[in-house]
């Protein structure tokens, strides 16, 4: 029974201490109870016998009296307390009346179930008290007051190879090279160059010739991107130069069809003075 005393100390109210010896005087403060089963358990334990030997009839009598007292004092009772009272009244009459084999479960079995239920709750109540009475950390036993604490520190290591570094700089530099750099790499033949070149060739009384023949021969051979770009530029410039020279009457242009080869020849009818 010592463990029960422990429970008392831990309960939020102290009603048990005063009233436990006199079941009929059991609390008139309904708030302190954890439901009807709680009241039943306390009443049962007040019979001071093993829970397996309690008198259910006596228990019922005490419970009903408790409810009556509470009602006479106009204490508000939750519904479940009244339901329990009704059920216990039913149980009591079943136990008192002559046995009726038709009723299943029998009142005796119901009484046994109630008793088992009280026993189970009682077991947990005592177990709780025993748990609370153990040597508990922070109350009875203590861990170290100030632990240094253990830490696994993740050391971040960064990975970057020499090649990555140099390559990155290469790319930054490449990306930010002056625009001049681009022009230098672009393959162009200027209009001036083309004019000079075409003027020179046309001065030698050329008959109808494909304009492409005026391009520097070196350009016709290359197959790479650079040569290709330069060829396009040279063709365009040569065409522009030819138009200019045709305007000045230095040469004549002829094309038989759309996209047919553009033919060029020296303008024989005019004098060969050029504007340049």
């Amino acid at each position, binding site marked *: 029974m010592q463990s029960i005393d422990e*429970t008392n100390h*831990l*309960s*939020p109210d102290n009603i048990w201490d005063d009233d436990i010896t006199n079941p009929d005087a059991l609390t008139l403060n309904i708030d302190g109870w*954890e*439901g*009807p*089963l*709680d009241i039943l358990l306390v009443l049962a334990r007040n019979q001071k016998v093993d829970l397996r030997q309690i008198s259910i009839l006596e228990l019922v009598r005490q419970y009903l009296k408790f409810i009556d007292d509470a009602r006479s004092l106009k204490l508000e009772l939750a*519904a*479940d307390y009244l*339901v*329990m009272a*009704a*059920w216990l009244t*039913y149980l009591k009459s079943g136990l008192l009346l002559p046995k009726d084999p038709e009723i299943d*479960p029998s009142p005796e079995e*119901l009484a046994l*179930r*109630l008793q*088992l*239920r009280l*026993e*189970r*709750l009682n*077991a*947990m*109540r*005592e*177990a*709780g*008290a*025993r*748990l*609370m009475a*153990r*040597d*508990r*950390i*922070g*109350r*009875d*036993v*203590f*861990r*170290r007051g100030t*632990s*240094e*604490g*253990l830490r*696994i520190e993740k050391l971040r290591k960064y990975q970057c190879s020499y090649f990555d570094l140099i390559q990155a700089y290469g790319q930054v530099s490449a990306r930010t090279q002056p625009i001049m750099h681009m022009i230098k790499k672009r393959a162009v033949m200027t209009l001036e160059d083309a004019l000079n070149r075409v003027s020179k060739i046309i001065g030698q009384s050329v008959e109808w010739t494909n304009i492409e023949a005026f391009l520097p021969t070196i350009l016709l051979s290359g197959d790479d991107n650079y040569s290709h770009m330069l060829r396009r530029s040279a063709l365009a410039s040569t065409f522009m130069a030819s138009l200019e020279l045709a305007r000045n009457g230095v040469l004549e242009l002829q094309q038989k069809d759309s996209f047919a080869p553009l033919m060029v020849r020296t303008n024989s009818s005019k004098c060969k003075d050029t504007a340049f």
Partner: protein
Amino acid sequence: MVDLEHIRAVEATLFASETPLHIKDIQQYVGDKIDVDIILKILEEHYLGRGIELVKRGERWHFQTAADLSYLLRRESDEVRKLSRAAIETLAIIAYHGPVSRAEIESIRGVQISKGMLDVLIEAEWIKSAGRREVVGRPLIYVTTNEFLTHFGLSSQKDLPGIKDLKATGLLDPIDSVMNEIFTEEGCEENDG
């Protein structure tokens, strides 16, 4: 033969730790080459009867002051005062019957429990949810934690006071095998055991 340096290493690790340590945790700190298992036994014995003891709670080890010296050091902590009777009962039910659902706890206690109560116990790190029961409604079920064992000085669930007797007398049997909700609002609903 166990190296004194190894003993010192395990001793220092346990001493410095803020939380109880599993053997695996200790191994992480002291390195693979040390036989932590044996050293823990040596240390346990070394501290036996001292003011400080090495104890195993659940699967985890920690140093604490010897229980018999509680008279010197005892403090009524807030936790103890705060814990209501209902909370203590609920904790006991989860410890002894766990895993249990809330409905099962209520069935044993014969009264509904407030949502907040489980939260208090979860916050104290004494219980935790352990999945759901595969029945209608799939209710959450609760069990006690390692912290629970540590706090109450239990080496394992089997070490719960009186658990053997309770089992033997059938008081820890599954709840519905004994009785169901006769005390719910429906009153005397029947249940076959």
